[in-house]
């Protein structure tokens, strides 16, 4: 598996240069890695499905328990089949989907390949951090693929929203993982699931995990990013936003449900949010006029259903979840790819514009009918198998079960309704609308869209195959009575009644669409999730502005006051906790210290009364030299030498800078008003440091071991008789290397700042010159274009675009 992931990533690196040669066929090359992975995984399927998970790991930092651990079990296998199978199809489709001469082919192919590898890693990861890294990688790929080349404001906004929302969830997930792993004492997902911890911190962790899953799988209230992300090309939507990436949240729920399915903090929010998403987003799908938007809301709705099914951690529900997971990946990718075909061949995907396409594109239409039938849960398709199991799971029992069952039936009804709406919108003939012009799509576009739809039928008809793939994923879950088996027909019973009710009810809902729309009414603006998102983002911006405005006031005395006060308060708190007074108190070690100290004090005092900046700088230098002299007296020649040299250099630098300043300090005005406050802070801080250094020096009771050892080992181990030097370049050489790196960075930064300030201010461009007639118009048009874009963006924000 490591190899398979690596192949994806390496291939991605090769694709970019290849794209220059191969053009759009680079997608076919990119399809190789998921296709080969699929084949290879299927050869391993036998033992994995019979319960022998296949593990791999590489030590990253094994001593602290960090390793990249992968484990392919039945659930991972199901997801892998979905991810790699759809991935290969989508990539082949993409080769025919791109318009000739379209740019960015190489980077798109490379990103899709990276995404495929990351998704593969996500579903086989067995280490929480490995899982998290792949999780975020898929988020980043989604951001880049939705944003495209960044030239459209709409795409940029959608991609940023997708990134912000899913990264927020990702961070919550990371925190949840850390809490969970801490409580369980292991980073291995399989071990956490095998021995689930419990306690209040675990409940918090579970909520955080749910937040991660909900953002990734676009559940209410995080869902608006998914319809927004529909600005991406159809294949990207089909792969990332229907089949693979949005399933990551469901996968996470399914992965941890066996351990936490009975914990209320886990299943209650999952069922509530999932059920609400299922019904609400289905209703929004009924309102949509854009085919892809309809499908996107449909995806949110279906993901809600999956959330309910997989989160409860019960065997029949999990079987239903597994079957629906597969079914949804197949029919939704087929529908997205079909929507892409329509969009590409007719130039529109608006329900109100498309008309009479059923007759002109019979193959595509029949494929979509098949996919929608699977979505609606008609026999003998995979969707039916899944829904039967779902209804069965909640058929017997308690009030909660009945409520969930009712929710599922209503959700299925709406699903049927918007499924028919999709077919009618895409292929139906509308009254008063001329038949849409369409170019016949190439087989390379049709085939990848057909295959998943047909696969849904195959999996539905060949239930033993489905059972073999799905049933092991629910191994070890509580069955509750006689174990359920995935099959097409279980005899007449409640599930069949529910199915019939859902299908007929759905048809009725579709017929009564105008009524349904009126019944829905309007959601108050404050409750719109999109408005909420915008408010949070602009609020954060505002907060950042305000904090920066308050904190970065641009006053050096202000900054110094803050620093000094924090020194006094923070270290003062340390002192307040009790430091013994020194017992061998004395005024000096060496009488020479007294005149030197007086000298330093006088110099420091005169700095304050200096009127000229230059005098003040020189006096500061005198203070520094005086301290250097104190070092000499204390017997630290190395320190003293460095002090003298640095002091000299600082003086020179000061003199350089002073050339730009007025000779005298400014007096009066605000400076005078703040003088006493500044003086109080400065003398307070000075007095504190003096007292503190005396007190702290008393805290050491014995000669430090390190110093003795340094002195003893300098000669034999570092080959140096100068202990200071031995410490600098040998014992603590890592510190030295780090410090000089900091010095280099600081110097480079300072130099850049100074040089940037010196750059000539840009002169306003003169109007069109006769000498260079071609250039100025091009330059003039560039800013106006960007202005337009900004204006456009602002206008869109003011409208408060809501999905």
């Amino acid at each position: 598996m490591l190899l398979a992931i690596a192949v994806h990533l390496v291939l991605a690196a090769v694709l970019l240069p290849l794209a220059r040669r191969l053009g759009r066929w680079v997608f076919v090359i990119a399809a190789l890695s998921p296709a080969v992975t699929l084949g290879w995984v299927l050869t391993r399927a036998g033992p994995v499905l019979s319960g022998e998970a296949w593990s791999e790991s590489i030590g990253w930092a094994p001593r602290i328990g960090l390793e990249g651990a992968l484990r392919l079990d039945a659930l991972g296998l199901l997801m892998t089949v979905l991810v790699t199978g759809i991935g290969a199809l989508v990539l082949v489709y993409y080769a025919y989907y791109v318009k000739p001469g379209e740019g960015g082919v190489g980077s798109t192919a490379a990103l899709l390949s990276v995404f495929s590898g990351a998704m593969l890693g996500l579903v086989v990861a067995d280490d929480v951090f490995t899982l998290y890294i792949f999780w975020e990688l898929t988020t980043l790929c989604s951001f880049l693929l939705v944003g495209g080349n960044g030239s459209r404001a709409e795409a940029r906004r959608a991609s940023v929203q997708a990134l912000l929302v899913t990264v927020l969830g990702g961070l919550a997930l990371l925190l949840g993982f850390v809490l969970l792993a801490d409580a369980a004492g292991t980073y291995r997902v399989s071990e956490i699931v095998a021995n689930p911890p419990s306690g209040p911190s675990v409940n918090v962790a579970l909520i955080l995990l749910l937040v991660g899953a909900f953002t990734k799988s676009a559940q209410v209230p995080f869902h608006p990013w998914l319809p927004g992300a529909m600005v991406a090309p159809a294949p990207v939507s089909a792969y990332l936003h229907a089949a693979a990436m949005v399933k990551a949240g469901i996968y996470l729920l399914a992965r941890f449900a066996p351990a936490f399915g009975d914990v209320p903090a886990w299943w209650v929010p999952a069922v509530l949010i999932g059920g609400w998403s299922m019904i609400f987003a289905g209703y929004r799908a009924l309102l949509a006029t854009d085919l892809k938007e309809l499908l996107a809301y449909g995806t949110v709705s279906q993901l809600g259903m999956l959330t309910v099914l997989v989160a409860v951690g019960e065997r029949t529900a999990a079987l239903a979840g597994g079957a629906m997971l597969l079914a949804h990946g197949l029919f939704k990718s087929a529908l997205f790819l079909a929507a892409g075909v329509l969009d590409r061949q007719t130039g529109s995907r608006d329900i109100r514009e498309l008309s009479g396409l059923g007759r002109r594109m019979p193959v595509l239409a029949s494929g979509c009918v098949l996919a929608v039938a699977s979505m609606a849960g008609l026999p003998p398709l995979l969707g039916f198998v899944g829904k039967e199991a779902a209804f069965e799971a909640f058929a017997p029992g308690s009030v909660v079960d009945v409520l969930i069952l009712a929710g599922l039936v209503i959700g299925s009804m709406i699903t049927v309704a918007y499924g028919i709406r999709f077919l009618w919108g895409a292929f139906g003939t509308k009254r008063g609308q001329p038949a849409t012009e369409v170019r016949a799509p190439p087989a390379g576009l049709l085939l990848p869209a057909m295959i998943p739809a047909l696969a849904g039928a195959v999996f539905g008809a060949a239930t033993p195959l489905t059972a073999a793939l799905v049933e092991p994923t629910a191994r070890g879950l509580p069955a509750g009575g006689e174990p359920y088996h995935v099959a097409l027909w279980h005899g007449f019973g409640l599930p069949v009644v529910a199915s019939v009710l859902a299908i007929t009810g759905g048809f009725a809902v579709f017929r009564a669409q105008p009524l349904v729309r009126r019944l829905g009414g309007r959601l108050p603006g404050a409750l719109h999730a999109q408005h909420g998102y915008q408010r949070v983002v602009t609020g954060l911006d505002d907060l950042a502005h305000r904090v920066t405005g308050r904190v970065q006031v641009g006053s050096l005395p202000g900054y110094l006051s803050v620093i000094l006060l924090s020194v006094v308060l923070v270290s003062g708190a340390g002192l307040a906790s009790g430091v013994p007074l020194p017992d061998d108190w004395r005024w000096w070690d060496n009488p020479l210290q007294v005149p030197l100290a007086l000298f330093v004090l006088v110099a420091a005092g005169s700095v304050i009364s200096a009127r000229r900046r230059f005098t003040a700088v020189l006096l500061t230098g005198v203070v520094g030299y005086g301290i250097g002299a104190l070092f000499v007296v204390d017997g630290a020649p190395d320190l003293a030498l460095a002090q003298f040299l640095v002091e000299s250099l600082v003086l020179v630098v000061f003199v350089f800078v002073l050339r730009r300043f007025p000779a005298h300090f400014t007096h009066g005005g605000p400076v005078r008003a703040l003088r006493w406050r500044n003086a109080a802070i400065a003398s307070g801080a000075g007095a504190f440091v003096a007292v503190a250094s005396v007190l702290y020096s008393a805290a050491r009771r014995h000669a430090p071991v390190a110093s003795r050892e340094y002195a003893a080992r300098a000669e034999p181990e570092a080959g140096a008789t100068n202990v200071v030097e031995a410490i600098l370049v040998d014992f603590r050489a890592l510190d030295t290397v780090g410090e000089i790196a900091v010095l280099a960075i600081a110097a480079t930064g300072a130099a850049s700042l100074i040089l940037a300030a010196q750059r000539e201010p840009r002169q306003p461009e003169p109007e069109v010159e006769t000498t260079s007639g071609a250039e100025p118009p091009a330059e003039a048009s560039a800013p106006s274009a960007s202005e337009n874009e900004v204006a456009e963006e602002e206008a869109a924000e003011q409208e408060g675009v809501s999905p």
Partner: protein
Amino acid sequence: MTRQAGPRATEPDASEPDATAWRDWDTPRDSWLRTDDARPGWKRSVLLEVVARVLFPTVLALSLYLLFAGHHDTGGGFTGGLVAGLAFVLRYVAGGPAELSAVVRIRPPVVVGIGLTIAAAVAIAPLAFGTEPLTAAVAEPVVPVLGKLKLATSLLLDIGVYLLVVGVVLDLLRTLGAGIEHQRARDRAEEEG
């Protein structure tokens, strides 16, 4: 920069073997004093310039001494680098940017980079010998004339520090010194119109 081109540049046959005949070996290759006034608005002190030029090699020699003596005596890469940097500061203060560019032909960030590279290489090199990073080795070769020497590989680290500090000081001179001068010249030019 209108500094007169030094004799080195005007000697066309410098590369030919005959060019360095025994009579010419001590011909100065650089002008002893600048003949132009590179810094308008700044009084030129010939005395200071000459003293700085005379002292310059001595101070550099002192800095090298400090660098190598560090292992057994007061000194080390940091102090050595600072002393060398101050030597350049002296030249700059005496004669301005032209004086500095007469002795430094390499760009300061490159010096910083070389210093950091040497230090990092010294840090990593022990890995190639299967020991932990930053492990120092001590050798005691007997060199003719100098006698028995005690050399530690950590001296290389010190050389890296030395170069880096010199580079940082030169960078300060380049930006704060010459840069601000440039700015002042521009301001003056603007005032004059």
